[in-house]
């Protein structure tokens, strides 16, 4: 057995291109997915209307089916219904729907653990419904669930490797492409796996850095 990593060098451009795709997919998903989760959690929090039930169904379907099947359903299924969708858009939509569903569920647990009386008290003190929701419900809930949120975002980033299967040129696609050229499968996958690992570590560190600023009010306090 011999490992030869030098055959990878001519392909560093491909790896870089794939890395950029994986990164921007992850960044967009993180922001839009969390926004979606807030909306879903808000509507479900309001009560048991038909919207709330529909959103509950969405969360359960996403959480109980594999990402790759969701991806195939969007990418192959929608065009068959006459709705054209590009691979990149399908990937992005699938990733956002995923993060949205998982985060909505995490967020709900965070919201449930905020005492209901606080919400009512802030309303009585004259905050509008949205103000109260933002300052009294959402921010404390986020600060409480932040560790789970970090993990979830990383899971979605790692899961995005699957978008290579509908030919989105991400990091994994680059690895498959290089493997098909130089037949050095193991070396390529080893390097790319290491890049994913670094991405995961980097994401955790940046999230923690942002969290320290966002939730600075909790520091020193008993929370």
């Amino acid at each position: 057995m011999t490992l030869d990593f030098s055959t990878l060098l001519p392909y560093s451009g491909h790896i870089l291109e794939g890395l950029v795709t994986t990164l921007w997919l992850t960044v967009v998903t993180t922001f839009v997915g969390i926004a979606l989760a807030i909306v879903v959690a808000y509507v479900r929090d309001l009560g048991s209307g038909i919207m709330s039930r529909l959103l509950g169904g969405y969360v359960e379907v996403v959480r109980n089916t594999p990402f790759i099947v969701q991806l195939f359903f969007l990418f192959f299924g929608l065009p068959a219904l006459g709705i054209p969708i590009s691979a990149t858009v399908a990937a992005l939509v699938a990733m956002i729907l995923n993060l949205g569903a998982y985060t909505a569920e995490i967020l709900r647990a965070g919201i449930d653990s905020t005492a209901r009386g606080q919400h009512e008290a802030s309303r009585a003190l004259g905050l509008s419904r949205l103000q109260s929701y933002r300052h009294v419900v959402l921010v404390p809930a986020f600060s409480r669930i932040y560790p789970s949120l970090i993990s979830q975002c990383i899971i979605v980033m790692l899961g995005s490797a699957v978008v290579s299967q509908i030919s989105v040129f991400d990091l994994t696609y680059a690895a498959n492409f290089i493997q098909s050229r130089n037949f050095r499968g193991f070396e390529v996958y080893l390097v790319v796996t290491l890049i994913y690992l670094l991405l995961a570590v980097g994401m955790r560190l940046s999230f923690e850095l942002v969290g320290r600023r966002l939730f600075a009010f909790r520091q020193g306090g008993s929370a």
Partner: protein
Amino acid sequence: MTDFTLWDIVRNLLLAGRWTVVLSLIAFVGGAGVGLVLTLLRMGGLKPIRWLIRLYVDVFQGTPLLMQLFLAYFGAAVLGFDVSAWTAASVALTLFTSAFLCDIWRGCVEAVPSGQWQASRVLGLNYLQSMRHVILPQALRLAVPPTVGFSVQVIKGTALASVIGFVELTKAGTMLNNAAFAPFTIFALVALGYFILCYPLSRYARYLEKRLYGAGIR
């Protein structure tokens, strides 16, 4: 080209679904076995062993399952083994599962108050005895709900074995789609198949969790 009736599609998916179930069971049972050994080693072991196990867990949790599958598949070839998709998928999913379960179970063992440890040691039980009679029974109660919950992730994870050519539910779906070209129906049915497998487990995990914490334990 032959025409596919809905029943043809459903029948073929059901046949392939068996392999999703079998692979999930292999991964879960194998992963639980390896995970248990790792958990025990990690709780009692020497510092370098603990450190190595932590690295193992971090690496599997910090890399895509798809990459782990590719590495198992191509890595074995580099080492000179000719592995089937079956073997590669079983090995990769078992290791993946063991890392996550090891992490979940470590949390459960640590959640048992340390006074319990000290008390049992003071009463003259050795490490294994304390573990077996005092710590593990308590940790086990805490461990059941998240373990059941994680089994859902294992089942969903087996879908990725389709990428290295293992014919299970997802692969059968893509193959059927190539022949019948009814992607909307086929992938909706594939998703339904996973949902039928996963949803009861999710519900059961949530029920167990509610019961555990509702009962005021911990």
